[in-house]
């Protein structure tokens, strides 16, 4: 009747991912070739790192649709400096810009009480325009070979270093978020902001940090993007925000906050990145990509909502039933002297 131990939602997503891979493998065994699987995962590294960042924001119960623009902007900055021979400067400035965008978003949402959808929609537009200002509308190309090859470097012929580092970061973050007191603040704020206030948890500060992390990881994603793709157009990163939000939802993170983990975000990103490859291997043209993503998203979210509401309804009825005293079960009747 009551769940004794709840299965972490990321686990369900991992199972789904594995089943998905196995299912495809049954139809087309070439898919289960180890190199192919690695290729699938490695190709999703930018999605993964950005999804990890946005997971912080969503877990606190907010949303950030400016991450795609942040990826594009930081990629442009990084590309520019790398091409001109100042890689470390470029990396540093890109990261600072990413965090700065996060600070602006965080300030608007946490302190000015602007709804996060609107705030980040606004900053998204502004940043997209700024990219054109910064790049003059031109592509950034001719990046040095050494930089571009960074994305290809593999750890013992398996994961790329980029993906490996992402996985390590994901594990570290997971540990911090679940084992340290401060790490748990994110979930607490998203789960019950009023309850968190009652316990003295700084709700505004937590949200600010979440947005800063989102910007930070988006900037790292932008740097990785620069290395992987090798050239940056002014529309780089366009549409990423929707894909990583979908990745988080697929990975078991609820948009209402308090539920989910960065592991789920990574798994969801892996699912999103694999879908097009999977379709190829199943013999479908990549045209089905969006359709499948859309159906998946809707099914998962509706399912989740229905289950949640069922249990909430049950709780409510139990609560009311508890208040009714049945004379057959009255335990004590005391005489007042």
């Amino acid at each position: 009747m009551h769940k004794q131990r709840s299965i972490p939602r990321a686990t369900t997503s991992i199972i789904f991912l594995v089943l998905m891979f196995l299912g495809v493998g049954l139809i087309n065994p070439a898919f289960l070739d180890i190199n192919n699987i690695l290729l699938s995962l490695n190709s999703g590294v930018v999605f993964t790192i950005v999804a990890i960042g946005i997971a912080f924001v969503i877990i606190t119960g907010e949303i950030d649709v400016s991450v795609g623009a942040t990826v594009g902007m930081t990629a442009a900055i990084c590309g520019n400096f790398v091409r001109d021979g100042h890689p470390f400067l470029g990396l540093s400035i890109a990261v600072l810009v990413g965090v700065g965008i996060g600070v602006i978003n965080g300030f608007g949402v946490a302190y000015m009480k602007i709804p996060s959808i609107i705030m980040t929609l606004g900053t998204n537009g502004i940043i997209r325009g700024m990219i054109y200002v910064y790049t003059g509308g031109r592509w950034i190309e001719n990046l040095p070979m050494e930089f571009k090859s960074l994305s290809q470097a593999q750890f013992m012929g398996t994961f790329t270093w980029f993906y490996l580092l992402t996985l390590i970061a994901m594990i570290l973050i997971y540990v911090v978020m679940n084992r340290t007191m401060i790490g748990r603040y994110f979930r607490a704020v998203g789960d019950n902001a009023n309850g968190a206030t009652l316990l003295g948890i700084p709700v505004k500060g937590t949200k600010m940090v979440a947005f800063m992390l989102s910007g930070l990881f988006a900037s790292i994603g932008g740097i990785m993007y620069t290395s992987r793709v090798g050239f940056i157009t002014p529309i780089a990163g366009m549409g990423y925000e929707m894909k990583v939000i979908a990745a988080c939802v697929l990975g078991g993170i609820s948009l209402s906050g308090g539920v989910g983990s960065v592991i789920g975000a990574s798994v969801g990103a892996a699912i999103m990145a694999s879908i097009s490859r999977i379709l190829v291997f199943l013999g479908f043209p990549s045209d089905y990509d969006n359709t499948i993503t859309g159906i998946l998203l809707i099914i998962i979210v509706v399912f989740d909502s229905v289950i949640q509401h069922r249990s909430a309804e049950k709780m409510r009825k139990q609560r009311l039933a508890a208040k009714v005293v049945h004379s057959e079960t009255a335990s004590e009747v005391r005489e007042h002297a």
Partner: protein
Amino acid sequence: MLNSKSITKRVFRWETFLILLLLIEVLVFGLINPRFLMPRVLLGSINNFMTISVVALFVTLVLVTGGIDIQSGAIVGLTSITIGVLWNDVGMNLYLALVIGLLVGTACGALSGFFVAYTEVQPMVVTLGGSFLYSGIALLITNFSATEAYKGISGFPEEFSQFVRGRIFGIIPHQLLIFLFLVIITYILLHRTKYGRYVFLCGVNKHAATYCGIRTKQIVMSTYVLSGLGAAIAGILLTAYLGTAKTDLGKEITLPVITAVVLGGTSNLGGTGGVIGTALAAFVIGILRFGLSLANVNTQYLDIPVGILLVLAVAIRFSGSNPTVQKFIGKLRRSKDLRKNN
């Protein structure tokens, strides 16, 4: 906290502000480039932002109930390609195809609306999924066509395009009249009918609305149905105007649409706002972009002022309910009273 001015007066003030903005824009841009003031040019600019304006009108209803809809862009493209394929490859009568296009858009809205209203999923996520789904379906439909997806289907009959592209006396675009017609319809629907009143009540206080016997679930779902219909109408207009049916016609309209609705005075929390504000705001944004482009500002930079406008507009409105701001205003008032008494 709220002063006792009535709601109509408050909205009236915001819309006056928008009209003022519009006039300032026309003045400023006219000074920079006098060509801007030529009726032919000024009115003709409307053609550039018609899609966004039409969609925004209908999305307003969704936001009034406190929801959000980000799938309209996908529905625009889906409607367009459906019409194109039905007319071109299936050989259907164009007008029949248009009707089916409208039905398709409406059905898309109904699906998402159903989930929002009856399973209480967050509108953001469902319409996000919807945007993937409907744009995906649009792409699949092109597989039924001989024409490649990127080319789009062309060759529509002259009257079809002319109806939308034409101008009265060579100056007033047909689309302006069509738009005005739509504004009147949505205005009557939202502000003059029982239904519209229900939409507002659901947005102001859904619980209280159920206590009044209002069928809130039906009302909420209906707003998404209408939003889908609006996107379909916009898709038809755009297809006719361009003379081409393509899957990605509505690709980048989400931000401008939401900006227009919010800037127009509709709060994303629901319960306030209106179509007149949305229409005015859509014009403010559209004219802003057009004027800047005529002033030789690169088209790609145009999102910056729009984004800033959005954030400022919302910040100003929300700062009214910010406790720090309230305390500050309270202090100002008290010090003013003290000075008066002295």
